[in-house]
Every structure is written in C-alpha cells, then in structure tokens.
C-alpha cells in the first residue's frame, strides 16, 4: 500500500547506491577478501541500510557488535547504543522496530537465553528484526566455546531460524535475510545462527559485494500490522490484550493470532527458496549412507565423506540451511534412498536428529550422532568411525588420547 517512490539508483548520505537486492546479490561484482566471521558481519551490515543496532557484550559476538560500532561512527547506520542487559537489548530492538526501523543485533549463549521472552513477542508483533546468534555453551559449568544448544530453544519462538555454515553464508544471508523477513506475507524476525568462534574468529576468503552498493531501506508501510503510534498499537498487544477478557472470542483471537505467526513461517518458505537457492543443499542422494547436518557440522561431514571415499565407501550429504521454515519435504526427498542417516551435531541433546526423525519415514534409519558439546571440536574421523561402527566396518582411525 505504500505510495513511496523507489529509491533504487539513488544514493544515501554515505554515497552508497541503493541497489536492486537481487542484482546486488547475484550480478554485482564480488571481491575476494580475507576476513574473520565477525568482520564479515560488519561488512554485511555496511551494505544492509540498517537504521538501528543495539549491542551488549557477550562472547563470541562482542567483536562483531564492537565492529558495528565503528560503522556507526563512520555514519553507515542511523543509531547504535549499548543496552543494559540482553533482555533490555531485545526489548529496545522491539521498540525500534515498532517505530519502523530496520534493526540488527547480535547475541550468544546465556545472553540469548536471558532475552528469550522477547523472541516470541517479536514474532507475535511481526517485527522483522535480524539477530545474529553466534552460538556458545549455555549450561553450567560455564563455557564460551561453540555449542549449538540455544538453537533448540529458538525453534519454537515463531522466528525464522537459519544456520550458516561459513562466513560466506553469513555475508550473503544477512542481506538476503532482510529480504525474506520483510516480505509482507512473512514479516517475522530472523535468528541467523552460526557456530561461534569456528565462524566468527577464524579467517576465510569471502567474496564481498562492492561497499558502495547497499540494500534499499526498509519500508514499514508494507507491514501486515499497522505501524505503531500511541493511538493505534498493533492490535491489543499493549493497551488491551486479549487475556484481559475471559470469553470465547478473546481466546479464539489469540489462538488465531498464534496460528497466523506459524502460517507466516510457512509463507517464508517460498521466499527462502528463492533467495537461498533452496532450503537445503544435497549431494550424492543416490547413496545408502547420508549425512544430514547444519552449521559447521556440514563442513566436518563433507570432510568425512572425502575420507570415506578414500576407503571406497560412498556417502551423501544434506546441508540444512533453514531450520525454520523446516525443509521437511526436501529432507524426505534427499534421504529417500538412504538406509542410514547420520546427524553429527555440536550439542548434547541432538535436537537436529530429533527433527529429522520426526520428518522421515522409517526413522530407525536416523543415527543421532556423533555429538560433541561444550566447545569440543568434531574431527571428521569420529564421523567416519560412527558410520563404520553402524555399518559393522572396521574402524580406521584411533583418536589420540589427550590430557593427563
């Protein structure tokens, strides 16, 4: 309904040209650059036409948050400040998004958990905030190392949840993520996750779009709910919530509202497929053995496949890119020929294996493992051994013992 003139082709105050997002991501020249994941987050935000970034320090996202502070000093984002805690940050993000701003924040581990109440609120209020989650351990005893347990808690918030494997994924998906989450039929927050340190603190070659090209700004008039003002809050969310009335229609309205959030997650499927070129990547799907993984477990799985091929064992791979929307049909199709499905994960509970077991027929095929957690690395050899053990093959590697 917005009656605004397209800004594409015009320049912002930093001299960046607002560029058609599809052309920016697919046709603009790319420059190979050697950056850490945190630096890549900064470079993506430089091109994202963000209005507001709110920060609070917690490892391993602190570096990215600090680097974006530099962007603010350089004039690339409208406002930047530190919240009082993670809960405060997420509440402040909501306020900024209610006011019609494109909002970005970063979080990790216990901070994500502390802010958790806000995430279903964001989804319910249809706020297309983008939050980077650089996963780390959340449970006592304290760990700051990569561990993807907090993703399990995010899966039922109504947010979109994507899991990046590499810094390149991160760069592209931050920009594409705004395009998906701001679609009027979606308009949901996005938790863009990565495995902390493995992605944020290692350097990699990342192909970047030109720094003088950026996304068009957010248009809040495409929101499926009215922009907030003090006279017309988004329905009865603040001034007169449904719960204040105890009658059938109040409950029916609240129930329908919740259903609508999950309907919007479903609607994001089409847009996510369009931008991410599918919700999964799959290779060698004709084989008996498939590895299904997300995040950096995909990289380890890929290396395990190479090791297995050296020994004459052929194995396929599914990289799960989006956890919400969940690629159920894609995973069923990609694993239809598999007799064994292995799910390596960087967490203790095996939430991805549970999702896959609930998705595929003959779920006994799904081997939940190997698991590592607490920040341990996952050498490809343990994936190989897990597969060989299940197949009754002789293990080829003996892991060296460490410590006293």
């Amino acid at each position, binding site marked *: *309904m917005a*009656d605004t003139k397209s800004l594409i082709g015009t320049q912002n105050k930093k001299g960046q040209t607002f560029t058609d997002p599809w052309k920016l991501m697919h046709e603009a020249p790319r420059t190979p650059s050697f950056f850490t994941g945190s630096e890549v987050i900064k470079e993506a935000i430089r091109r994202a036409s963000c209005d507001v970034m709110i920060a609070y320090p917690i490892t391993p996202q602190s570096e990215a948050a600090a680097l974006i502070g530099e962007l603010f000093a350089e004039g690339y984002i409208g406002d930047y400040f530190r919240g009082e805690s993670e809960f405060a940050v997420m509440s402040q993000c909501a306020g900024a998004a209610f006011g019609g701003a494109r909002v970005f924040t970063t979080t990790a581990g216990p901070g994500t958990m502390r802010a958790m109440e806000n995430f279903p609120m964001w989804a319910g209020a*249809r706020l297309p905030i983008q939050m980077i989650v650089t996963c780390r351990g959340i449970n006592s005893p304290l760990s700051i190392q990569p561990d993807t347990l907090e993703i399990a808690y995010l899966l039922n918030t109504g947010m979109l949840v994507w899991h990046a494997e590499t810094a390149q994924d991160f760069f592209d998906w931050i920009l594409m993520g705004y395009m998906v989450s701001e*679609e*009027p*039929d979606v*308009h949901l927050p996005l938790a863009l996750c990565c495995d902390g340190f493995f992605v944020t603190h290692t350097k990699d070659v990342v192909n970047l779009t030109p720094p003088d090209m950026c996304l068009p700004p957010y248009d809040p008039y*495409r*929101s*499926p*709910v*009215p922009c907030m003002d003090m*006279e*017309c809050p988004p*329905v*009865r969310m603040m*001034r*007169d919530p*449904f719960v204040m009335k105890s009658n059938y*229609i*109040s409950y*029916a*309205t609240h*129930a*329908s*509202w919740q*259903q*609508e959030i*999950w*309907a*919007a997650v*479903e*609607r994001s499927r*089409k847009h996510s497929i369009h931008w991410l070129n599918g919700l999964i990547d799959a290779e060698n799907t004709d084989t008996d053995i498939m590895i299904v993984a997300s995040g950096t477990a995909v990289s380890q799985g890929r290396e395990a496949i190479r090791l297995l091929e050296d020994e004459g064992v052929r194995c396929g791979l599914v990289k799960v890119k989006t956890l919400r929307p969940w690629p159920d049909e894609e995973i069923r199709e990609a694993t239809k020929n598999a007799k064994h499905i292995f799910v390596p994960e960087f967490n203790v509970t095996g939430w991805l294996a549970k999702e896959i077991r609930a998705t595929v027929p003959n779920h006994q095929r799904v081997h939940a493992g190997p698991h590592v957690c607490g920040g341990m690395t996952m050498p490809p050899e343990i994936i190989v051994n897990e597969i060989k053990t299940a197949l009754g093959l002789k293990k080829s590697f003996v892991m060296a013992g460490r410590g006293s």
Partner: protein
Amino acid sequence: MTEYRVMPGPEHFLPPAAASMGIYLPNPGEAHVNGVIVPEEKAMEEAARQFLMAKVPTIFPGPLVLWAWNEKAAKKATAIRHLYNTLKECVGPDQIPMLIPMPDYRPKYPKINPEMEINPNHPNLTIWHNKIDCCMFVGVHCHQANLSLKIIRGGTSCYTIAMCAQAGHEDAMLSFRDASVDKIMRLADWVKKLKGTVQVRTRGSRNGSSN
C-alpha cells in the same frame, strides 16, 4: 499439492491456518480460488459470480482505503465506491448489498456495534447480525485480515474474498494480490458483465447466519 481446500465454514472450533495446511499464495498475475492457484481473470469471474449469487454481498473496506493517507488510497476508495454502486445496480430486489467499514482496529467500548462496523476480533458478529453470505476484504492490514478471515471460516458459512494489496490471503476462499484501482474496476466490470446470468442462492443453501 495439498488436498486441503479453503471452503466456506463453519469449519472447526479452531480451524487451522490454511498456510499450515499447504495452501500457497499466488504469484503475480495469479489468484487463488479455494486454495487452488488460477489465472487472475478466472478469479475475477468467480468473485463476481459469488457476489451476484449472494443475498447480502458485502464489502469490508479497511483503514488502508478508508483513511485518505495518500493519493493511492483515495483513488482506491473511489474505485471501491464504484464497485459497491455497480453491485447495487446489478443485484435483484431481494438482494441487499452492503458496505461495512473497518475503520481501525482499536478496542471498542463498551462493545462493537456489529450492525455498523466490523472489527477484526469480532468479524463473526458482523456476519451473523447482517446475515452476510459473501464478503470482500479490501484495505485491511494483512495480519488483521488473516485473523478475521480465519475466524469467519471457523464460525460462519460466509464466502470470503480478499482484495489484497500485497501477497494475498490463503484464509479467504478467493484472493487477489497486488490490488490496484484497475483490478477493483475490472471486478466491477465483471459484475456488470454477469448481471442477470447468475441465480441467487435459494433458501436452504448456505448463508452467513447458519451458525
């Protein structure tokens, strides 16, 4: 493709959102009828037919066209008035076309008057009180429209049409997308074109007050 179809209700105590049942929104140039993607022109014909079959065909304009907040909204409002006038000209003496506003979504105290206006939280009251058996949403914010359309499908047998300015609505029985002045006028043309060729629903058929 899903077997699920978006049909007039009453469907369920708490019907599922159609999107969760595998109904997809149309691409530009398309529309959906009962959840099946069709060319837009076919949906135009069907929408006009449903209006002319109804005893109480009703248009529910929302704030995005009721408030002249920009030039486009004002032009759409004029087009909707034209559609309503066309409906009045094209129906028989036993049919009662209505134009019932949804001016804002704020709570109404002490309560909504369903004879006068529709509220997204109480759309079924307006449908029941006015015995509406076919209605069209236009200019309603998408999330509010989805909410209302689903409650209507759950508790009434009203046939719902959504003239959406964005991506469309799965929870309507028929939905257009990218609504423009031209599309509203084309729908009015279809109503005029089908005048006299469509039979009004007989007693005993589904109507908005059945629940």
